[in-house]
């Protein structure tokens, strides 16, 4: 599926016909949140939803909503979510995590849009209504932007695939030219060379300018994550209750919970809860974990 060469993309017409519940071939260019991460273009696979007002690929649903051809207020987001969760069950491992995170972005945006859509609108008289509409536009913009890049990535994939098949002349330099290259000037001592190796193999420290002095966090999620990591790595499995045992400050309690979410997002831990509001059991699952992971953790909260 190589996109046509003319450089124009219109995400609003990306996947099939936009005639409501009509038939859809599901092989549009962007498979929405559906396409398998590794396979790139998973023909017809991906997440489909079956609602009263709509039946088809999730991506098409988004298209219709963003084109105002389907009213967001008529879409049951909880039903979409239920279907997504059962769809996820069929996936495995990393695919699951990636798809879930992408779904969350889109679902959160949809939810916001729906809230904006359900609120009474009336005449555009007061500043509040205007602000509401603007907020809704922002959400549309966010959704469309996300989908535009998804769309563009399809073009990238197609071009790269096409270019993979091309053959450029890349030949070794003939010996007669190689021999005319000026003699190499070598100045490194053996110890310099070893030092260079150390330098080259040391993982790069990511420069980080702390903003702590601007918004001094009362409790650091990163520090709390470090606590959770060391507890879980030692014990393997703990309940959340055990993880927060002895904590009295609400701030620490919250930060520790947020760090658990962050660690889950980094696929470092798994958790299970057998019933709503029941005991939350945390399990250490990371194959690899380094200080670097920890340093990057919770960066969203720094802003």
């Amino acid at each position, binding site marked *: 599926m190589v996109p046509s060469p003319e450089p124009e993309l219109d995400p609003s017409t990306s996947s099939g016909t936009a005639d409501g519940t009509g038939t859809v071939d599901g092989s549009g260019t962007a498979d929405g949140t559906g396409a398998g991460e590794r396979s790139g273009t998973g023909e017809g696979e991906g997440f489909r939803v079956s609602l009263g007002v709509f039946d088809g690929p999730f991506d098409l649903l988004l298209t219709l909503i963003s084109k105002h051809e389907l009213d967001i207020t008529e879409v049951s987001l909880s039903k979409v979510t239920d279907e997504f969760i059962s769809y996820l069950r069929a996936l495995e491992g990393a695919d699951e995590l990636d798809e879930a995170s992408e779904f969350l972005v889109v679902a959160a945006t949809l939810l916001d849009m729906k809230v904006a859509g359900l609120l009474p609108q009336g005449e555009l008289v007061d500043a509040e209504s205007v602000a509401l509409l603007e907020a809704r536009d922002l959400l549309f913009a966010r959704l469309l932007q996300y989908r535009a890049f998804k*769309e563009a990535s399809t073009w990238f994939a197609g071009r790269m695939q096409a270019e993979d098949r091309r053959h450029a002349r890349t030949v070794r*330099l003939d010996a007669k030219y190689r021999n005319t290259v000026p003699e190499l000037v070598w100045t490194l001592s053996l110890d310099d060379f070893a030092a260079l190796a150390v330098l080259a193999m040391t993982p790069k420290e990511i420069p980080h300018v702390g903003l702590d002095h601007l918004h001094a966090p009362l409790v650091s999620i990163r520090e709390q994550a470090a606590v959770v990591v060391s507890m879980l790595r030692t014990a393997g499995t703990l309940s959340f209750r055990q993880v927060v045992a002895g904590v009295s400050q609400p701030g620490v309690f919250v930060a520790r919970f947020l760090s658990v979410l962050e660690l889950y997002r980094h696929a470092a831990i798994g958790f299970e809860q057998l019933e709503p509001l029941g005991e939350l059991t945390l399990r250490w699952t990371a194959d690899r974990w380094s200080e670097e992971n920890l340093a990057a953790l919770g960066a969203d909260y720094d802003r």
Partner: protein
Amino acid sequence: MTDDVMDAAPPLTEQLEAVLMIADEPLSLVTMATAVSAPVPAVRQAVETLVDDYDGKAGGPRRGFELREVGGGWRLYARAEHDAVLTDFVNTQAPSRLSQAALETLAVIAYKQPVSRGQVASIRAVNVDSVVRTLLARGLVTEVGTDAETGAILYGTTDALLVNLGINSLDELPHISPLLDGPDDTDIFEGAR
């Protein structure tokens, strides 16, 4: 030896052909001009002559190769029509495909550059650190500076990306600009309601 015409310098096109024959990456007009000690406009014209010549537009036969402008320079390629035959012949192993996540991140960086990982992550809404490392290792993106305010590393795309895409400049990326005017600019939806 046919040294009979050696009093005059060989034509520019011939010298360029020789240089292109031993080059192993796209050559810019300036690089070629330096190599053959000729002014850039003359080199540009000679390159155009060769392109037409190889395409069979100069009276001679069409060649089995072509001169393409890719990634900011010119390079000899086997003609696309023969790629199927050549694939059997060279049996090159294509590099492993980029994941969907990597492609999307690459697209965001390509359109938004220079851009920090944090900014990319806020669009893709997932952690992009490992993906960016993959793209760095592939040579498709590179560090282009740091944000003056936050000190965050800013990333941009490389010429190698252009070569991989078979295009010559970022201008050849598909237009998606109307959708990318940041959320600050809500005017874009004026007509949408």
